[in-house]
C-alpha cells in the first residue's frame, strides 16, 4: 500500500467513526455513568420537534441541544425517566415520543397491526375449512348406485 492510499484509508475510517457523534460532540458528559446511561436512553427516545425524523441524540438543531440540556438538568435534579418524558410531552406534544404511551387514544396504533393479522388468519382459516368441508361432501368416490349408472352409460355407448 502506498503512503497516499494509507492516508486516504485512515481519513475514511476517521470520518466514518466521527460522524455519529455530530449532534452532541461538544457537549458535556454527565459525571455519574448511570445518569449518563439514562441520558443516552432518553435522548434516543425523544424526537426532535424541528427535524422530525431524528432523535434529539442525533440532531444538530438548537432545539435538540436545549432539550438535551433540559434532560440532563432534570436527571441531576432526580426526576424519573417517566417524569422527564412527561415533561417533554407537556411542552412539545405526543409527537416527541418515538414510543407513544399505551392509552385508549393510542390503542389502535399499538393493537391495530395485531388485529389486522388476526383478521387475516381468521379469513384464511375460514376459507380453508370451507373448501375442505365442500370437497368432503362431493367425495369423488361413487356410491354403488352411481357406479351402476356410469357402467350403464359406458355400455350403451
Amino acid at each position, binding site marked *: 500500500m502506498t503512503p497516499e492510499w494509507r492516508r486516504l484509508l485512515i481519513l475514511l475510517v476517521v470520518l466514518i467513526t466521527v460522524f455519529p457523534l455530530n449532534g452532541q460532540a461538544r457537549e458535556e458528559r454527565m459525571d455519574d455513568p448511570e445518569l449518563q446511561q439514562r441520558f443516552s436512553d432518553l435522548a434516543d427516545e425523544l424526537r426532535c*420537534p*424541528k427535524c*422530525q425524523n431524528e432523535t434529539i441524540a442525533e440532531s444538530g438543531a*438548537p*432545539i435538540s441541544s*436545549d*432539550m438535551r440540556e*433540559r434532560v440532563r438538568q432534570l436527571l441531576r435534579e432526580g426526576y424519573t425517566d417517566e417524569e422527564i418524558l412527561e415533561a417533554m*410531552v*407537556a*411542552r*412539545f*406534544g*405526543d*409527537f416527541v415520543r418515538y414510543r407513544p404511551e399505551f392509552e385508549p387514544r393510542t390503542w389502535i396504533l399499538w393493537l391495530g397491526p395485531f388485529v*389486522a393479522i388476526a*383478521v*387475516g388468519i381468521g*379469513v384464511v382459516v*375460514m*376459507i380453508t375449512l370451507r373448501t375442505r368441508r365442500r370437497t368432503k361432501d362431493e367425495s369423488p368416490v361413487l356410491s354403488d348406485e352411481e357406479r351402476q349408472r356410469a357402467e350403464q352409460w359406458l355400455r350403451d355407448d
Partner: protein
Amino acid sequence: MNRLWLFLPLALAITLGMVLYFGLGQDPSKLDSALVGESVPDFQLPLLQTPEQQVGSEVFSGKVQLLNVWGTWCAACRVEHAQLNKLAEQGVPIVGLNYKDERPAALEWLEQRGNPYSTVIYDPEGSLGFDLGVYGAPETYLIDTEGVVRHRHVGVVDQEVWESDFKPLYEEYRDDS
C-alpha cells in the same frame, strides 16, 4: 350472511387507505400544541427595553392578546413584521417574546421596522420559549383573559392566517369577557 364476513378485510383496507390518504394532505411540520387549553407557564424575565423591570405570567391576564415569538436571526419574522404592525394599528394587543436574541440587535430591529408590541419579553436563553414548546420562530399564540392559550400557529401569520385562524377566536374570547 357468513359470506359477507369475507368482505371484512376489504373494508379494513379501504378504511386504512382513506385514513392514510387524508394524512397525506397534512403538513407534518405542524405539530398539535400540547399547550392549547393550558395556562402560559410561569416565568420571570426582564423586558427588552427596560432590563431592570422583571415580568411574569401576570402580563397575560386581563385582556385577550397575541403572544408572538420572534428573533432578529429569524428570516420569516422579517416577512411577518408588517402584518404585526398592521394588527397593532387595528388595536390588537401583541406581547412579543424576543427569543434567543441579542438585546442591541433586537432594539435596532424595532427602531427600524416599527414596534407592534405592547410589551416585549427578553428571553435570550430561550427558557420561556422552551416551556412553551417553541421549536422555531415565528410562533404566535392567542391567549385569553385568564392567561390560557387558545390557539397556536407555527410560522408566519399573514392576513389569510389571521382571518381564518385567529380573528374568529380573538373576537369570540374578547366578546366573552
